[in-house]
């Protein structure tokens, strides 16, 4: 028996997300009195792999196969399912991000393992195995029993605190032969944005809505974000109008994020917007309308004109930085 965790890397480096997954897996393994095996796919050097041990991984299996450079959901599923059978994994943990969403359901069918997706707490119960997941876009949470022998959990991003435990993990480099006929995804072009903080990774997000009035008013919002090391986001009408790029749109039909701090400027707080941000640890709202629903979701609020408040906030942050 073991807990298996799939740790994603980006150009050979792990991010906080990977350590969060291992911390969570360690918590589950403790409940089950078993060990944690972390799987890494891609070229990651040994010193980087070792870092997974700092969060409790006992064993690290590194697969660095040239055929696995692009995400091919079938090939990745084969590799992970093979390893999980070899390791006799009873619980498999994967992120609930794009990659996890591509792999977890396929793995579920392959292993006949029920999936609890978007889980944000340690299992509530082991017998029956019960997880806590987001439903109705954050308007409700469900206790879900997974009945199969093998269980898959996809962990909501930024929902579990990092726990450092010195652990000397063993590293195994595994060469998994891949059936070439499984590799069906051909990547014709890659367009990467560089230098921008990835919205779904950001600890702090500064977001603007229609209350910002015009795209010309964004520089002070962007300046605040830059000073705070934050990513920028927006409401749907703002991206629909083309005031901001599409990939900044948060909400039910945009990105679902859970930063430590979400600053909503000129956003009314429609349920569809809240669906994407309600898991943020702290929400701050700046809005001229004291009755705007966003204030009900916020811990801190300023009733005021964004155009006047933003420059003052920028000045105040400069004071402390």
């Amino acid at each position, binding site marked *: 028996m073991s807990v298996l965790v799939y740790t994603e890397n980006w150009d050979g480096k792990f991010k906080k997300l990977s350590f969060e997954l291992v911390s969570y897996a360690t918590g589950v393994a403790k409940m089950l009195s078993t060990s944690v095996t972390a799987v890494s796919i891609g070229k990651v050097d040994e010193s980087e792999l070792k870092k997974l041990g700092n969060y409790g991984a006992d064993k690290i299996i590194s697969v660095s196969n040239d055929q696995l450079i*692009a995400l091919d959901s079938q090939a990745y599923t084969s590799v992970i399912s093979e390893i999980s059978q070899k390791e006799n994994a009873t619980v498999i943990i994967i992120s609930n991000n794009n990659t996890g969403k591509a792999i977890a359901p396929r793995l579920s069918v392959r292993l006949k393992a029920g999936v609890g997706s978007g889980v944000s707490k340690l299992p509530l119960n082991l017998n029956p195995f019960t997880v806590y997941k987001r439903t109705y876009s954050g308007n409700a949470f469900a206790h879900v029993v997974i009945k199969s022998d093998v269980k898959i959990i996809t962990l909501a991003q930024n929902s579990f605190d990092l726990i450092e435990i010195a652990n000397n993990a063993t590293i195994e480099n595994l060469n998994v032969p891949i059936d070439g006929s499984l590799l069906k995804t051909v990547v014709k072009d*890659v367009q*990467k944005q560089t230098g921008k903080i990835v919205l779904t990774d950001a600890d702090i997000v500064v977001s603007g809505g229609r209350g910002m009035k015009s795209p010309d008013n964004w520089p002070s919002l962007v300046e605040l974000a830059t000073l705070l090391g934050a990513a920028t986001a927006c409401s749907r009408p703002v991206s629909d109008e083309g005031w901001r790029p599409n*990939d900044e749109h948060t909400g039910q039909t945009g990105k679902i994020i859970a930063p430590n701090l979400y600053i909503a400027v000129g956003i009314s707080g429609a349920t569809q917007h809240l669906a994407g941000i309600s898991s943020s640890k702290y929400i701050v709202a700046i809005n001229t309308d004291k009755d705007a629903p966003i204030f009900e979701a916020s811990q801190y609020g300023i009733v005021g004109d964004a155009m006047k408040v933003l420059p003052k906030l920028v000045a*105040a942050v400069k004071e402390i930085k």
Partner: protein
Amino acid sequence: MKILVCISNVPDTTTKIKFAEGNTSIDTTGIQWVINPWDELSLTRALELKDDAASGIKSVTVVHVGPSTSEPTIRKALAIGADDAIRVNAESSEAWFVAFQIAEVVKKEQFDIIMCGIESSDYNGSVVGGMISEFLGIPSVSAVSGIKIENGQPVMTREIDGGKEVVIVPAPFVAIVQKGIAKEPRIAAMRGIMMARSKPVKLVESVAVEPLTQIVVFEKPAPRAACKFIDADNPAQLIDLLQNEAKVI
């Protein structure tokens, strides 16, 4: 080529969710049911592709796993423009069960492109599309933000961390769609509504499969503390609170 669009029937996105007695299900009184927003957008894109004669898309079918009470949602999809519909007659209890039923439908009817949404707004599972593809042993592409047909070949754009990739996979495949797939959902016109009445809805009985998961109870999100208001003339106080009370900056 034939497209199958999987549609899920969900409460309107503005619904205030209440639970029924015992908190084991939601209270459905007064709920307005709609096509899951992603599925509405994937249907829109499928129809746009079909409108372009050069694409080679011959038909757009919608499939839904659900009881007869979800018929109005299926009719709405037909009114928007789907050619025909298939309803698997069963309570859509759980992802594994639903995906299994849709895979069975595809095995019998052969589609080239199967479109699913990235998540249903009720269960928020993000799994049905991937499961269908694995049941069928065909490729799946996730986080698809665009699809077009170039010389008879479907070409997709998918979101990756901090960027985009243009990918192709051989048909048949499952495209799991997200933001960007279509701009605005297509709305049913009067003529469409009239025509929908005579379009075929094929009823299929479900295949018995053991569900792997079960919701035992719902709960409301933990209430947030009341909002602390800070004077608009003194935003420095907000920065102080964020730094020293919330400790987030």
